[in-house]
């Protein structure tokens, strides 16, 4: 006892070099991400100041002021993201539930691999697919929607002749975010305590009721986080939207016409190359707005997750 006690004390005091190096490197990594974020924010603010104070006549399209230029783009970004989430979220939850609770183990595993593979396809490929395959394929459906449901503001005509509408772009975005949301939801659903599920079943619940009372409430905060990560990807997606969408600087809820609100990221990609002077600053201003939108989305997600933590069943 006596012999080993001093040794123990000594071991506690001595910090090995490897430990110290590792601890320092994690601190550096952690602060680096903050520094990067700050650097980006500073760049965006500094570079967008000239556009805020400039004569609006010099801005692209000569709008009334810089916000008249940014507003349609901000609207388009959020609108395309929301449409994509409306399509992707139910699908992803369905796929994740199928994998975790319905499919035989081998099919579930294979399906999981396929979903992950989808996440590895570069966005420009999705864009080309959107133009070459999706747009012509959905055109007859769009035609029908405008003809029969044209009285609903969402489906007013004239229908786009090429199918490159905001709805097509939203479908492409949905396909791109499905892998992310599905993968996260799958992990969350797998964490559901087996005791909860078995308790529900023992009380006479069907499988659907078991999912309703045990799996979904437990996974709610996880689903929200997954959705927000997916939304973040959809908001920032550039190439696919730039390729697929037929954009215009408008605020417009119509889903099937040629005049679609453009998104911030795709607008930057399309006009950056030939932009000069104040036009360049205006583009950075839109980037700043996207930065703020993303920040709000993330804070909202954090808030929603925290608020629901008490009911998640994890405690």
């Amino acid at each position, binding site marked *: 006892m006596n012999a080993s006690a001093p040794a123990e004390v000594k071991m506690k005091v001595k910090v090995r070099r490897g430990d110290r190096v590792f601890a320092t490197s994690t601190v550096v990594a952690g602060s680096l991400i903050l520094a990067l974020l700050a650097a980006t924010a500073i760049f965006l603010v500094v570079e967008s100041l000239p556009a805020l104070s400039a004569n609006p006549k010099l801005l*692209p*399209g000569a709008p009334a002021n810089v916000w008249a230029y940014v507003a349609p783009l901000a609207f388009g970004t959020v609108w395309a993201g929301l449409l994509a989430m409306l399509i992707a979220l139910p699908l992803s939850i369905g796929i994740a539930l199928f994998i975790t609770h319905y499919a035989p183990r081998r099919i579930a595993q294979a399906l999981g691999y396929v979903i992950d593979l989808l996440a590895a396809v570069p966005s420009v490929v999705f864009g080309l697919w959107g*133009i*070459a395959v999706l*747009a*012509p394929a959905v055109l007859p459906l769009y035609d029908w929607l405008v003809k029969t449901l044209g009285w609903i503001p969402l489906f007013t005509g*004239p229908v*786009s*002749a*090429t*199918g*490159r509408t905001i709805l097509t772009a939203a479908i492409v975005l949905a396909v791109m975010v499905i892998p992310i949301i599905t993968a996260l939801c799958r992990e969350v659903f797998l964490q559901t305590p087996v005791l909860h599920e078995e308790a529900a079943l023992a009380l006479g619940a069907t499988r659907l009721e078991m999912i309703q009372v045990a799996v979904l409430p437990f996974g709610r905060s996880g689903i929200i986080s997954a959705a927000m990560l997916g939304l973040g990807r959809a908001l920032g997606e550039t190439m696919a939207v*730039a*390729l697929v*969408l*037929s*954009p*215009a600087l*408008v605020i417009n809820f119509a889903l099937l016409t*040629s*005049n679609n609100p*453009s998104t911030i990221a795709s607008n930057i*990609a*399309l*006009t*950056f*190359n*030939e*932009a*000069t002077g104040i036009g360049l600053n205006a583009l950075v201003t839109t980037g700043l707005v996207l930065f703020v939108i993303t920040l709000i989305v993330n804070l909202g997600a954090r808030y929603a997750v925290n608020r629901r933590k008490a009911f998640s069943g994890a405690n």
Partner: protein
Amino acid sequence: MNLKRYGVAVAILATAAISLTACASNEAAPAATSTSSATSTPATGTLNGSGSSAQANAETAWVAGFQEANPAATINYASVGSGAGVAAFISGGMQFAGSDAALTDAQLAGTFTGCAAGAKGIDIPNYIAPIAVAFNLKGVKTLNLDATTIANIFNGKIKTWNDPAIAADNPGVTLPATAIVPVHRSDSSGTTNNFTDYLAKAAPAAWPQAANNVFPYPGEAAAQNAGVASAAEAAEGSIAYLEASNTGTLSVAKLKVGSTYVAYTPKAAAAVVDASPLVASREANDLAFNIDRTTTAKGAYPLVLVSYFIACQKYTDPAVASLVKAYASYVTSPAGQQVAAKSVNSAPLSASLTAKVATSIASIK
């Protein structure tokens, strides 16, 4: 196990390195055994330029042709867009620029950091690309249009193909009642700038907008020439403006010039540049053109994009100056122009313009 994993990483890196270097030396391009244009003593050194994406494919062919004739010389051209290219040239980051627009008076009033003290940049036309008005309409292969009709189609006033305004230009052609789908570029481009410049000057009443890189009206839009072409091919009744080499399966309209209708040809595109005046009050060796969109010269096609090779009047380093001169001479020589015409269907400079350009290049010090 670990060794194996590293092996894979190394292999990937090696492949990447090889494919990257393969891209860098443009030897594989379909160019040009035209060694005749090379200067008597092979040029040496490295030249960096950037700018117009319209010129990019032509530059690739030129760089390959030039480096083949001058193995000791390296030319790098980055397609970053005209605006960025000119900015990089003015700030001295690049030794030359490719630009779809000539230097502005404001730019010429400033200092060119990359040039010798007091020297300015000069514009040398090196790339003429006809812009085609192409359409996709079942049963109609030829179409005559005047500028006002085109303007009214693209601003949305004319909505169907059997509109009297179109019929008036096309006696004897049966036009269907198909809706017109005008397709424009969604990205900012010199092609749009030249197209809107043409409409603003040739049809000011129907097109009360100044020339702009961004298309001013709503409508169907797609990115890049290729995107516009595929959108137009997909939509029945579409009409689009695009660089002539991209028309693919689309039919091409003739434009009204004076009292006749002119189809785009390389010769007709070069002819309008010859018929156009130079921008006033510039240095004698600055060949910035004010393209005459309302020309009535016989056989001239006024809807063209003229892109410039922008160089310094005087460089601080004579070695750079001689390399710029050698490269610019090759690019604007008949052989160089043929290389571009073959690979991207540009319109070779006319003989008289070639002579003017040669004088201008010779004045670079």
